[in-house]
């Protein structure tokens, strides 16, 4: 009888052993992967003893190796010159994953283990995330950063309830970039597309389409395009008091009408994903691109098209008040989390780099990260003529555009509202629904989401 019990015990031991085997494997790489956390603990107690030294490491989340990760690395090199012990750790993480990780870590209460010191956000997301997770983000209003040196509209993106939560990074000033060779085939020059209205643009784009068979621009669904158009006339989905304003909003309706018109005419090509959006620009299937100026770094990747591109301002929305030829889309902002281990270090880092180094902005200019820190725009590098754009001095042009962007109201539910309006557009375009009814439905969807 005893023997049977031994068998039983053995079985359990076997299985536990098997599990322990994986536990061993797991914890060993847990140590490896978690050494960041370990260092924090050790130095955490150290900093109590010696507050002035603290951790010399800064952890950052951002997403693009050729763009913002590159910028961060360049900044770290600059900072290291005076602070040799400084260490930077960048985690490449997609913008969508950042939002998800914030949701999970705040709900699990392990923000201290998960979140880095610094997180980069798309300008359109900063307000949303700060409102959703107020405990996560550090109020930088009196942190020692001179926000007056940044362009005003840009700083506004990261202001919630009068408090600053972000350090602006690249400009999202909207540009229209066209293939001059294609325009020439259609009998146009870049000047024909400068300072025009959308109605004029559509007429000209139809000619381009007819003569060359190409859509003039494309876009990932309607999201970015609608933003560019709406912001150019200072439009917003909400009024200043935070009330939803879609159904009776003349600007939104006009933007939708224009958008549907260009979709109908085939001069705007909707793309499903970011990959095909960029792909079609790079291989010349569309004759241009319209987006935040950061899109230029993608355009320039097709080095065989050097000299064939030129940039100009965006068309203005005719038929509404406050229409301008300037707008913004995207651009990004650095935020500092409350899990930051050494706030003084991080603030000093930013004051020496993104909020204080012309050298940094000059270096990263080649990746088309256009500064929103005003002093950088005065640098000589910004007057450079760029061969890729037929020797146009594009950087100076964009700095000029940046200053002219109209200010629009920002709300935490902007992303939801934009999604709802774009859905309305889709329904009208593909299912023949009525625009007015769809916009009412969109407003209902958003207010439904807001009541929770």
């Amino acid at each position: 009888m005893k023997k049977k019990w031994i068998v039983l015990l053995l079985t359990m031991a076997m299985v536990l052993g098997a599990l322990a085997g994986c536990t061993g494997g797991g914890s060993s790489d847990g140590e490896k992967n978690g050494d960041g956390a370990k260092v924090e603990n050790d130095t955490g107690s150290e900093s109590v003893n010696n507050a002035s030294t603290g951790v010399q490491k800064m952890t950052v989340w951002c997403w693009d190796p050729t763009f913002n990760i590159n910028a961060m690395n360049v900044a770290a090199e600059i900072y290291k010159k005076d602070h040799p012990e400084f260490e930077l750790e960048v985690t490449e993480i997609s913008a969508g994953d950042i939002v998800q990780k914030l949701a999970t870590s705040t709900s699990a209460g392990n923000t201290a283990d998960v979140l880095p010191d610094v997180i980069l956000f798309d300008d359109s997301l900063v307000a949303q995330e700060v409102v959703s997770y107020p405990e996560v983000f550090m109020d930088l209003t009196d942190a020692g950063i001179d926000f007056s040196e940044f362009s005003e509209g840009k700083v506004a993106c990261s202001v919630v309830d009068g408090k600053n939560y972000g350090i602006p990074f690249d400009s999202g000033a909207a540009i229209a970039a066209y293939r001059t060779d294609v325009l020439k085939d259609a009998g146009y020059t870049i000047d024909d597309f400068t300072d025009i209205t959308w109605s004029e643009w559509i007429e000209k784009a139809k000619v381009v389409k007819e003569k060359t068979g190409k859509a003039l621009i494309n876009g990932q669904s309607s999201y970015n395009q609608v933003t560019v158009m709406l912001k150019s006339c200072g439009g917003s989905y909400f009024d200043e008091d935070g009330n939803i304003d879609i159904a009776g909003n003349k600007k939104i309706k006009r933007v939708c009408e224009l958008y549907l018109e260009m979709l109908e005419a085939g001069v705007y090509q909707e793309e499903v994903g970011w990959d095909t959006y960029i792909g079609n620009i790079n291989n010349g299937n569309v004759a241009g691109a319209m987006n935040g100026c950061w899109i230029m770094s993608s355009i320039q990747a097709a080095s065989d098209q050097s000299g064939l591109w030129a940039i100009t301002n965006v068309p203005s929305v005719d038929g509404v008040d406050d229409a301008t030829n300037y707008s913004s889309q995207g651009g990004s902002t650095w935020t500092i989390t409350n899990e930051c281990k050494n706030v003084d270090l991080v603030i000093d880092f930013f004051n020496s780099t993104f909020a204080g180094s012309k050298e940094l902005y000059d270096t990263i200019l080649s990746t088309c990260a256009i500064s929103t820190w005003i002093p950088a725009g005065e640098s000589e590098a910004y007057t450079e003529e760029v061969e890729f754009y037929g020797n146009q001095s594009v950087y100076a042009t964009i700095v000029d555009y940046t200053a002219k962007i109209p200010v629009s109201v920002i709300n935490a539910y902007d992303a939801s509202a934009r999604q709802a309006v774009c859905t309305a557009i889709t329904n009208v375009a593909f299912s023949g629904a009525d625009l007015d009814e769809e916009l009412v439905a969109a407003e209902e969807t958003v207010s439904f989401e807001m009541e929770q």
Partner: protein
Amino acid sequence: MKLTMRKKENLVGWAFLAPAVVLIVIMNFVPIIQAMIMSFQSGRTGNMTFTGLTNFTRIIRDSRCIDALKITLEYVVVTVPLILALAVIMAVLLNDPKLKLKGIYRTCIFVPAAVSMVASAVIFRSLFAADGFVNSVLMNLGILENGYNFLGHPSSARIILMMVRVWKMLGYQMIFYLAALQSIDSTIYEAAKIDGATGLQQFFQITLPMLKPTMVFTIVMSVNAAIQVYDESVNLTNGGPGNATMPIAHYIYGLAFNGVPNFGYACALSMVILIVVGAMAMIQMKVGDRRE
């Protein structure tokens, strides 16, 4: 003595099951109960309060949720029977001992099952892009004048979403039927042949009834999987254009993790799905319990 032997064997049996059962309970039942509790709560994650049935009454008013349910239903109703029929046909065709190249066909049809959903989405997206391979073929054949944006139109996007599933699951399910067919005694067919039954008669009167248990099992499995479809829509179209390809699991995911998260409501919705699939569970338990 005999009784104690029984007892002991029984205990050993339990010991054999224990690790697997404990893991399933911890990894599935515990979290689902937690989620159930959260479905009665509202507020920001990490700081939630009980609000009774608010989340459930909200569902009825949620037009996006109803759209998502419709899309999911359509997806299930189309893909499940289609994959079933194709898998059975392929399996029957392949179950011919005289067929040459059998191994090659089988491998070819199964291969997509090995591709991850993320990779499949990348592949199909580039194949069906406005300037992708499919369009250039159609244009070269003169069927289309200009590239058609398959994934940009709601109905074609939904069809491609279904196509990816058929592509990925056909071979996988075929293997089940192939295995089932191989266990059918060949003498039954020989007897039928002697009785003068045609090929079609054999198929409907012998093959199909013999495949019934496998069918029930795979149908239940694939209905479950189709109701929970998420990976495909996220990676292929991200729910677009508009919300035209956003099935319910994708919508729930968005509620929980994107925008301004509303986890209580997301939990309430997943409870509803759980109840809906619960009906399927009844059938499945019957199948699982079947013991001749």
